[in-house]
């Protein structure tokens, strides 16, 4: 039987390298994907998701096991990403029409193709892309809450644990985010 994440984390605290490698293998895609969703920069996402694993290794002994391991780890990762954005290195991505310095493409043009049924009209694809551009422009906490709910499928209590706030606060973040996104859909 495969050891649980919590058991592996305890082993990492005892400097079990194999346990650490196993945790990395389990969470590498989720960590990178979540970091990329918040930062919208592949290089930064790679660096910060790796940094989160390093922090996990260094502070595994502080994981008390009261919360789920994933919640604890996501908290480390989301804090790193939000701090990174706060320091302003990602602020270029907040400007709607800021062209990429290398390609000259606008932010809208640089968005990766969303999941789309090939039969869908081009207008629908553009609407969905616009929707995620609008997600990118949300306030940091609102954006993180939406991504954690929609992409990572966390519940409100889990999001509250990751963002270290109350469930009521998460509900407010999500309500405001959805209100903004609804306006985007309506104007589209």
């Amino acid at each position, binding site marked *: 039987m495969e050891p649980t994440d919590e058991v592996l984390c305890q082993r990492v605290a005892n400097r079990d390298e194999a346990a650490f490698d196993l945790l990395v293998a389990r969470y590498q895609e989720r960590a990178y*994907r979540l970091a990329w*969703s918040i930062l919208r920069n592949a290089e930064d996402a790679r660096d910060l998701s790796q940094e989160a694993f390093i922090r996990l290794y260094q502070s595994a002994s502080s994981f008390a096991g009261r919360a789920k391991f994933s919640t604890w780890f996501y908290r480390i990762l989301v804090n790193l990403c939000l701090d990174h954005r706060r320091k302003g290195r990602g602020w270029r991505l907040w400007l709607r029409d800021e062209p990429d310095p290398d390609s000259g493409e606008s932010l809208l043009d640089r968005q990766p193709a*969303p999941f789309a049924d090939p039969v869908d009209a081009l207008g629908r694809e553009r609407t969905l892309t616009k929707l995620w551009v609008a*997600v990118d422009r949300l306030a940091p906490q609102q954006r993180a809450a939406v991504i954690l709910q929609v992409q990572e499928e966390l519940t409100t209590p889990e999001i509250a644990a990751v963002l270290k706030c109350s469930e009521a606060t998460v*509900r407010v973040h*999500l309500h405001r985010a959805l209100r903004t*996104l609804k306006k985007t859909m309506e104007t589209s």
Partner: protein
Amino acid sequence: MANHPETELGPYVRGELAPSERERVARHLEACPDCRQDAERVRALLTELGHSVPVAPAVNWGCYRAELRLKLDARRARRRAWWSRPLPLALSASLAGVLLFFAVWNGWRSPGVEPMTPEEAIIGRRLDLLRQYSVVERLDLLEEFDVIRSLDQLAGTQEG
């Protein structure tokens, strides 16, 4: 209608509310068409978002893990070096000692400047002597007043 459950519509649609809360919201939705419409919009929006999550750029996971391992090893080596290498510690301690020595030595060499007496201050202002204070402070004012009066000539010969 008061108390529209705006912030609870999302959790309601996702089935996250406690039974009593869920019942309360459901009753409100039956009676409030605006909130009912809102709830439908929230449901549609969450569905659209879930179906259209942008895909992150591809990663070579072997390289990712190798990079991570290098970074972790470098971080561990840096931490070990700070605590275990004796030479930087000895150098830091020596430097601190040298700095302390110079600080104390300079304190001994430079006597504190004694403040002017009121009489000296008055005379200095009248005769513009404050610039020459280092000369004046060494003289007995009452006995050497003549020297003070011709101080300008004295300062001129010293500078020459």
